[in-house]
């Protein structure tokens, strides 16, 4: 067994000061909130990503003893994302977080780009307001950001244990009472477990909260981080100081439902694609070839030219949204973040870290309240679900539940980007000595050329209105 971090850890060897490791459950049950086995902590949070650290922070603030488990050597080591952290939800947890959070650039320019093989049409929005407090979104390296947020939980009193895998649940009398870890004798008992163990969440699956997993609900994200001089990035992206750009790209993954992204860090740019799993494997296309295709696009290539690959990364994303969401509460356990499929993949909005922080925060609060009230059964913890329903987390997810399907549909992925680009090209191509084409006639021709039926377009329009209207 390899060397584990920190002799001060409460798990396994070197935990002599901590009581009761792996002891047999005490006979004769006690109060509702007290698990049969002796609990070393009120709450064990599994995973020190944004969900886990927010949960640990919120619960520790309520005076609860919290153990925050992380399988990586540091928080963030296993985490990867597609570009922007929206910090508004942090205002409550860490007032004036922007003064201390390890940010690369503040996003002041936001683009949505629709591309075909050799066309592109971009909605380009910029506001200087997002470049000053309280800011809107930031790019960051997750190794920095996640470690920073975990540090806030530790400051609040949580115990962070890194390099430790939660290998399974301890369940007694049908309720979760802790986790087993990969440390010798590393059982950890708690009144409540909060599973923030990421997109693959083996804990949520073990608890039976995902009745089945459909690969169609998952996408693979692959990303290249490319080094470029800071001034060069400023020049190419038309920004200055610590301003940054985030570009979401539709039509960038020919034949495979997905999208592309490009965003700026201080002296690197990140470029990548997100593709749905069943079609990725059916297409027999290698993921890095899809990035290469995007990087060769005439609208992208000049932005990343000469950038030297600094790190290649990959991660799964639970993009199915509301339709794939597991049960969020069971006896003795809550699920938050990617583990609860709380990623909003709704085309113009692509958000995950903020939903992780939000759900984690509500989970931490609900667990603390349930423990204080002496009831950590499913009913006692149900406040978590209610809090999510009353907040942006499930309000947005429910409203946008049809959006992932719409965005990933064949028309949205192929025909519409082509249609939009053709239409704009036709309008802006000067046809002298012929007269200018009428917009309506051009649209009709475009529909016909792409084999689109008006009634399908109208149906998609209605679906879009129901999501975004």
């Amino acid at each position, binding site marked *: 067994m390899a060397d584990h971090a920190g002799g001060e850890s409460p798990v396994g060897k070197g935990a002599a000061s901590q009581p009761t490791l792996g002891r047999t459950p005490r006979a004769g049950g006690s109060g509702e909130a007290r698990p049969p086995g002796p609990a070393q902590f009120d709450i064990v949070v599994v995973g020190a990503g944004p969900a886990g650290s927010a949960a640990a922070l919120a619960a520790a603030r309520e005076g609860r003893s919290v153990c925050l488990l992380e399988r990586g050597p540091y928080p963030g080591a296993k985490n990867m994302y597609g570009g922007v952290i929206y910090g508004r939800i942090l205002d409550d947890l860490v007032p004036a977080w922007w003064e201390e959070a390890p940010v690369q650039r503040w996003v002041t320019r936001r683009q949505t780009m629709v591309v075909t093989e050799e066309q592109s049409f971009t909605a380009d929005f910029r506001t200087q307001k997002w470049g000053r407090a309280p800011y809107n979104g930031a790019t960051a390296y997750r190794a920095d950001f996640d470690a920073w947020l975990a540090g806030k939980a530790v400051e609040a009193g949580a115990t962070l244990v890194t*390099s430790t895998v939660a290998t399974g649940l301890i369940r007694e009398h049908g309720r979760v009472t802790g986790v087993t870890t990969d440390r010798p004798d590393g059982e950890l008992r708690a009144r409540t477990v909060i599973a923030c163990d990421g997109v693959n969440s083996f804990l949520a699956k073990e608890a039976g909260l995902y009745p089945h997993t459909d690969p169609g609900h998952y996408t693979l994200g692959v990303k290249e981080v490319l080094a470029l001089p800071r001034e060069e990035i400023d020049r190419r992206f038309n920004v200055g100081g610590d301003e940054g750009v985030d570009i979401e790209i539709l039509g960038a993954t020919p034949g495979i439902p997905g999208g592309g992204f490009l965003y700026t860090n201080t002296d*690197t740019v990140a470029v990548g694609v997100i593709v749905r*799993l069943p079609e990725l494997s059916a297409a027999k296309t*290698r993921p890095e070839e899809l990035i290469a*295709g995007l990087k060769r696009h005439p609208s992208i*290539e000049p932005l990343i030219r000469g950038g030297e690959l600094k790190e290649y*990364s*990959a*991660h*799964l994303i639970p993009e199915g949204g509301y339709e794939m969401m597991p049960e969020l509460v069971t006896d003795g356990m809550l699920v938050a973040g990617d583990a609860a499929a709380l990623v909003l993949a709704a085309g113009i909005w692509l958000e995950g870290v903020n939903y992780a922080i939000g759900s984690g925060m509500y989970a931490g609060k609900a667990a603390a309240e349930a423990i204080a009230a002496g009831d950590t059964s499913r009913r006692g913890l149900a406040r978590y679900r209610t809090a999510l329903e009353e907040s942006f987390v499930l309000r947005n997810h429910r409203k946008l539940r049809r959006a992932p399907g719409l965005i990933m549909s064949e028309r949205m992925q192929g025909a519409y980007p082509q249609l939009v680009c053709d239409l704009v090209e036709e309008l802006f191509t000067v046809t002298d000595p012929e007269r200018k084409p009428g917009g309506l006639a051009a649209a009709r021709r475009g529909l016909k050329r792409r084999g689109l039926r008006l009634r399908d377009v109208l149906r998609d329009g209605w679906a879009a209105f129901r999501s975004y209207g």
Partner: protein
Amino acid sequence: MKGSGMAPQPEIGFEERMETVDFDVAEKPHIVVDGEVCRSCTTRACVTACPANLFVPTSDGGILFNYEQCFECGTCYMVCNNEGAISWAYPEGGHGVVMRYA
């Protein structure tokens, strides 16, 4: 996609690509592939989908698997349609992929 007349950036080789990623390789493999089960597989979805290119078909119809440079993403078991072919767990604590700029 076609270039725009400018010379496209030369793509780096796969080995070189993977050299940019930090791995603290565990002694014990965290993923075990049952080559016997793979022999009857018709899709071989893992071979192209794995972003780290860890699944290599062998001439005798099996699959050779390396766990060392795994992103721990989960794509392989998600796209695998042969029950029991891939046993997937996380590498032991502190080991496996260590991302720095992701």
